[in-house]
């Protein structure tokens, strides 16, 4: 009797081990088919954009793109350590630093989406009528400090968080000063975008959100008491860039495929595909890799005019002529 049981347990254990080993072996063989690892922010993945565009690239190049969707900060850290081949992120300052320190090969603009200010649907502060994003923030600050409003911050070093800090800086508040705002109205959540919106719903608070997450939360009827209370300022555009990890720093990265991925994203086919993605009845991402698409977006923003001077790879024409991104035509492609 004892023997049977021990045999049974052994078979189960052995089954798990052998099954696991076999599956792992098969997986490794799988990886011999070309694949790259893309570290990206949760917004591109969770919105469904990548699931929409990546199959096209994977088919064309007969490869796998393994997506690791994390915060911008973590994505850049993964790149620094050489654990991924290419980044698609939206944290301009950190990106420039990433390229300047040699970890990233080059930074190429791909697309932007919009940040919006979200608040209680009755909008007691009428941020709706704000002159610009800074003005809206000023109203939230003024009311917040006297206990009339609340603001939930991501406070997680994400791209959204750094955008928020940029706006506070236009009002003269440094990062340290913002972090020292009274917790009675300025809530530093350390949470993802969706969770922050859920918090605002519960607290009748304002926040800065990317529009995709906001639309999605609205669509699922999770945040019925919230509204988009301010949008449209070009300061609220959220620029995404693609950065292949520097292969001179990390020899093992799949540089060829990473480069192909970058070229494809900024190609006409890639850009058109991004523009055609709609969700919740809205276009969520606006391609702006080339001057042509900039004109499609019909407004030239400071972010879009931003010149990438940190490019190090000499073989790319873009590296030699970094300003050509903003030309109304593309001399070399």
């Amino acid at each position, binding site marked *: 009797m004892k023997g049977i049981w021990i045999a049974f347990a052994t078979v189960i254990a052995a089954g798990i081990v052998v099954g696991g080993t076999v*599956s792992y072996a098969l997986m490794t063989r799988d990886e011999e088919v070309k694949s790259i690892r893309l570290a990206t922010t949760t917004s591109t993945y969770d919105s469904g954009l990548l699931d929409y565009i990546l199959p096209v690239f994977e088919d064309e190049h007969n490869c796998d793109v*393994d997506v690791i*969707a994390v915060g911008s900060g973590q994505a850049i850290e993964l790149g620094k350590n050489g654990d991924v081949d290419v980044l698609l992120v939206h944290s301009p300052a950190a990106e420039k630093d990433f390229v300047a320190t040699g970890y990233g090969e080059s930074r190429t603009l791909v697309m932007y989406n919009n940040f919006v200010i979200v608040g209680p649907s009755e909008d007691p502060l009428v941020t709706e009528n704000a002159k610009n994003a800074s003005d809206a923030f000023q109203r939230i600050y003024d009311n917040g400090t006297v206990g009339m409003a609340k603001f939930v911050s991501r406070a997680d070093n994400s791209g959204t968080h750094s955008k928020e800090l940029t706006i506070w800086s236009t009002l003269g508040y440094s990062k340290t000063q913002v972090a020292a705002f009274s917790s009675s109205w300025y809530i530093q959540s350390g949470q993802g975008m969706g969770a922050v919106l859920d918090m605002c719903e519960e607290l009748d608070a304002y926040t800065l959100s990317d529009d995709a997450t906001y639309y999605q939360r609205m669509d699922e009827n999770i945040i019925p008491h919230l509204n988009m209370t301010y949008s449209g300022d070009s300061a609220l555009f959220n620029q995404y860039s693609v950065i292949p990890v520097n292969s001179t720093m990390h020899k*093992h990265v799949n540089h060829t495929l990473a480069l192909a991925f970058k070229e494809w994203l900024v190609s006409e086919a890639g850009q058109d595909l991004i523009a055609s993605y709609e969700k919740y009845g809205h276009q969520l991402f606006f391609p702006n890799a080339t001057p042509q698409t900039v004109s499609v977006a019909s407004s030239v923003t400071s972010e879009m005019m931003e010149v990438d001077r940190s490019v190090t790879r000499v073989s790319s024409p873009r590296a030699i002529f970094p300003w050509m991104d903003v030309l109304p035509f593309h001399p070399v492609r």
Partner: protein
Amino acid sequence: MVSTGNELLDVTLLSLYVSGMATILGSAIGIPLGALIGLKEFGGKGAVKTLTYTLYGFPPVLSGLVVYYMFSRAGPLGDLGILFTPTAMIIAETFLVIPLVTGITITSVVEVDRSIKDTVKALGASPSQSIITVMREAWVGLVMACMIGFGRVIAEVGAAYLVGGNIDGETRVLTTAIMLETRMGHFEWAMSLGIVLLSVALMVFLFLRLLQEREML
């Protein structure tokens, strides 16, 4: 990754594989370690026990971070290239299982009555035979140790996300899938995945209970 063509099944099987392997490895290390600590007399035993119990509270994300730094390309074992694979997840989860299994094993073997230990010795058992007999007397506790270890890792998300990366079809397990669906606002789908996870856990626990309940005759 073996694909069954059914995404949910793939994710569930990977969860089982990662948690199962971590439990087996963690128990293979933790049970002998716990028996050693529990049955041997040595200086600083109290401190070792306290340390073991303290590690019950070892945060999963921290375990993930340690394993990340170990296997990151920039880390000492980066050349193995196992980051963002189930293997890395198993290693991180194993670290979480070891203290639990060790601690519960210590308690279980210590709680075997002194009179049993004396009797076994008086009947003429050698030290190693004594240990095996005491372990068998502690059987219920040892299986319990495996259960709790498995329970911790099947429900764990921090380490799994950090070193696994939640890659679709490669390293996505039930918990990271639940986290993703929650983040995407698909609360109902996330709840359904939670029910799948609990059902899987139920099956494993039923098997372990059966193993525990039976009298070792």
